[in-house]
Every structure is written in structure tokens, then in C-alpha cells.
């Protein structure tokens, strides 16, 4: 599912990198947002809001604990956005 060339994943990486204030290439698919990129709960909510805005999708905040890294975030967004 998560190939490097996937345009949606690339866009998610851009959004997450902006919120976490790192360069997109520094953000690995399984680097933990909290432990490795110092994200707090406010950053997590911001990430969710930016994703919702960009992809015009509603994602409940109950999914936040599942969005621990880029790949997990992709899976959550894919579920609600209907990406196959």
C-alpha cells in the first residue's frame, strides 16, 4: 500500500513535516511522531485538521492515538478517504 511514489503519501509527508517542523526527507514512514519528532497533543490535532482540510475528509479525533507515524497516518486517512 505505501509505496514511495504514492502521491497521497507524498502529500501526507509534506503536511506532517510542516506540522512537525522538519524537512520532508527527514520524516521516515515509521518514525514515531511523539518520540522521534517531539510532537505533542496539539501538534497531533493540528496534523489531523490539516489533513482534513487538504483531503476534504472527516476523521474522528478518536483515531488520533492510531496516528503514531506516517504509515499509520496514511492507513487511517485511507480508511476515511476511501483510498484503495
Amino acid at each position, binding site marked *: 500500500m505505501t509505496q514511495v511514489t504514492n502521491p497521497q503519501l507524498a502529500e501526507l509527508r509534506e503536511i506532517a513535516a*510542516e*506540522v512537525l517542523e522538519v524537512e520532508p526527507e527527514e520524516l521516515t514512514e515509521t518514525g514515531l511522531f511523539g518520540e522521534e519528532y517531539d510532537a505533542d497533543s*496539539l*501538534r497531533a*490535532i*493540528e496534523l*489531523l*485538521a*490539516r489533513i*482534513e*482540510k487538504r483531503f476534504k475528509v*472527516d476523521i*474522528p*479525533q478518536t483515531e488520533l492515538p492510531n496516528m503514531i507515524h506516517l504509515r499509520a497516518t496514511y492507513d487511517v486517512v485511507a480508511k476515511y478517504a476511501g483510498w484503495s
Partner: protein
Amino acid sequence: MMLDHAAIRRILPHRHPMLLVDRVLTLESGARIEALKAVTGSEPCYAGLDAVDGPGFDYPVSLLLESLAQTGALLWLHSAPGNGFPLFGSASDIRLHGRVRPGDVLRHLVRLQHVNAGTAMFGGETWVGDSRVLTAGSMFAVIRPDIDSRPGDRPSAAGPILDSHETGDAT
């Protein structure tokens, strides 16, 4: 619609000296707002400054952003009234085009970009006269519903709190 200072205080929990919006000129619910903030030499940020020439009397950018963000919060909270404490989350794509000095009147224009489940994103500009002094591409705020923000002089948040205080319809 226009909001006077009393109406602003019914919506925002901020108080002196950190309430940084004076008057709302126009408000289009859920969409856009235009508000004024007058900067004076008696602001606390200038206390203790002597007759320093130069940048000492530039209005601090942090307060400029806070004033713009409070304008966005007014638009958001007016459009979706409820309990909770608005928290500033982040600002990105900020550009400063000019400086602000005592005597200037800031005119903030803010558009709501996205609202969902206790979060809001908005962007805006600040003008002094016909000069743009600040552009904010994106600001992010959240509502913490578990903190009661209502100060003593705010009426019950049950129901629309503005009905009897809106002053005309300028939009």
C-alpha cells in the same frame, strides 16, 4: 454585522491587557471578519521605555499576531458558540511587511479556512491605512471544552449569547 466592545468581551475570554481587538466592523458568520485594534502609546508593552528613537516603539510582532488570532477566534466562536477555552495552536506562512507604531489602527481581515470538532484554521491580513503590514497564510486554534473560560461578566453560555447585543447589520 458589527460588534461593539461589550459584544467582543462576551465572546472572547481574553481580558486587559491581553484583549487585543477593539471593534468588529463586519462579520460574515462562518466565513470572514474585519476588525479594528488601535495601538496607543499607553500599551503595557511600551511601559518603561524612555524617549527611545527607532525600533523600540515598534509594536511587538507577537502581539500583532495575537491580535490577528483573536480576530480569527471571534469569527470562529461567534459562528459556533459553545463552552470551552480557545487555545492558539500554531501560525505558519507569516510575512511581516511593515511596522506598527503608537497611533496606528490595525485593520484585521480574517477568513475561516476549516472548522471541525473543536479545531479551526484561518488565514488573514493586517492593514494600517492602505498598507498591508502582516500576512498570515495559516493559523490553527483548538477549543478545550474541559476548561471553563467564561469570566464573571459573561452571561450563561446556554443559547445564543449575542442576540441582544448585536449592533446593526453592517454587512
